[in-house]
């Protein structure tokens, strides 16, 4: 025992101001990105996966799509941008957070005065930056190899921007929510990848939208991916391609509605289900 004044008695009567969530969120974002790019395997594969698939599908199916005035390759570029965004958000967060929970990274953060919002803001920055890079890569590949015409009107880019932001947000929230499903970090990739794979089939990513059975599309329409891909087709394909759509039009209003609903619903789901510890950690 020492005679020093105990330091666990607050020296001031008012609580000191702790750093704010926004500021800490920026720092966490920088840290997340640094970690992401240092894990080279993860970085390379995350980015390469949609690009490789685009290359395969677009090279195999090159024919003109009858009556739509486009090639199948162009369809794949638009669809793969949607899938790429979902993979850097839904898939990488779903697996990544489950691993962090399993490895007690989350529990340690919970033991500090870090506000929980800072952790989620950090993930938002991670997903925004990686999603942006992934999309840029796919657009570059599409424009140079598969005759994708980049739109010139600001209106189209504005449409692209809001679909990107809403879609990314919705999928990221869904990824945070799904991270609580696997019992351990080891099972996370199986739990997350299978539904994502199924969703890509029934949302018209791997199979052209006009050949997917109606009942599958209806099921896929419950989730954000179908609407993101549809919106990107609207941005990057000529108007003549609308005939391929289930509704015969791009349906921007409905896209906005569904994606916004997923943002709100996903947030509610996260707040209800998010865990800082594994079930076994009590």
């Amino acid at each position, binding site marked *: 025992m020492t005679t020093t004044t105990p330091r666990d*008695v607050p020296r001031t009567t008012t609580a000191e101001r702790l750093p704010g969530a926004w500021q800490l969120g920026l720092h966490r974002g920088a840290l997340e990105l640094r970690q992401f790019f*240092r894990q080279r395997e993860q970085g390379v594969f995350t980015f390469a996966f949609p690009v490789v698939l685009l290359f395969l599908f677009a090279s195999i199916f090159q024919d003109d799509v009858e009556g739509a005035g486009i090639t199948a390759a162009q369809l794949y570029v638009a669809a793969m941008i949607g899938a790429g965004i979902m993979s850097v958000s839904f898939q990488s967060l779903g697996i990544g957070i489950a691993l962090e929970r399993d490895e007690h990274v989350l529990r340690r953060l919970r033991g*500090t*005065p870090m506000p929980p919002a800072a952790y989620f803001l950090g993930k938002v920055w991670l997903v925004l930056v990686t999603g942006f890079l992934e999309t840029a890569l796919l657009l570059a590949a599409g424009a140079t190899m598969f005759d994708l015409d980049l739109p010139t009107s600001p209106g189209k880019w504005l449409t692209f921007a809001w679909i990107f932001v809403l879609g990314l947000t919705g999928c990221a929230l869904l990824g945070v929510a799904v991270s609580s499903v696997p019992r351990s970090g080891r099972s996370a990739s199986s739990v997350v990848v299978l539904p994502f794979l199924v969703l890509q089939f029934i949302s018209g990513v791997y199979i052209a939208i006009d050949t997917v059975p109606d009942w599958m599309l209806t099921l896929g329409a419950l989730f954000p991916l179908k609407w993101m891909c549809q919106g990107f087709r609207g941005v990057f394909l000529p108007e003549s391609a609308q005939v391929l759509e289930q509704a015969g039009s791009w349906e921007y209003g409905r896209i906005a509605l569904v994606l916004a609903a997923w943002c709100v619903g996903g947030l509610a789901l996260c707040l209800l289900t998010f865990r800082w510890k594994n079930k076994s950690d*009590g």
Partner: protein
Amino acid sequence: MTTQVNQLAVDVRGLRKRYGPVPAVDGIDLAVRHGEVFGVLGPNGAGKSTTVEILQGHRSRDEGEVSVLGADPATAGRAWRARVGIVWQDESAPAELTVRETVRHFARYYARPRSPEDVIAMVGLQEKADSRLKALSGGQRRRLDVALGIVGDPGLLLLDEPTTGFDPAARHRFWDVIRGLADEGTTVVLTTHYLQEAEALADRLVVIARGRVVAEGEPAALRRRYGEEATVGWTEPDGRTREFRTKTPTRTVAELMSRFDGEVPGLRIVRPSLEDVYLRLTGQDGGPAAQEGER
């Protein structure tokens, strides 16, 4: 927030926690004063980690009153977390970051952190400051855990078996770090299953076995209280060895001397070490209680 100086840093009464039908903590009381190093000593599975996790606010309790720095850990907020440092038993931090990046980042969470460079030096990781965490040895990672626990300059530090897996030299270095923090006035609560560690660091300690406190006090007082009884052994003329436990071994020897008329065959007097006391208290001395207890 108003905290009286005479209030206890940690005040636990009647704490109970069960996992299924198994009680892990079965009615524990703790009273830790401000500025002291308090040891929670016990074998694996005695309920130490459960207790300290409840103090950290990371585990719910079934029964009992818990006050840590004047607040209930189950409901305490950010300001409370800023004043309580935690060193976990099994911890991980992102493997791809360097020691310096990690300590600097954690320092940002606090209003008035210690200097990250000072903290790295305190735990002796200066030479590893730019190494990725995945390149650290087990002992070095534990020292990083301590660095992250103290970077916020907490008034109370909770350590759960901090030196498990350390080699003796690393353990002594670690003890010096804890002593340094205690000299600055930090209240420290640490669990350990190393008697030597509790004796070296703790001003006071409790011994826990099977979810209950079986002894409490200053290490020296515990040794006096439970170490008084000596065992006198000798060999009977028929060759059988006899043992007698007594608080007055000299008298027993005198009696033996008169019985044997001089030299007592095979005479020995054994005083229990603190280790023996501890093993007896926690039922690990080979008695029937030694068979249970692991969780």
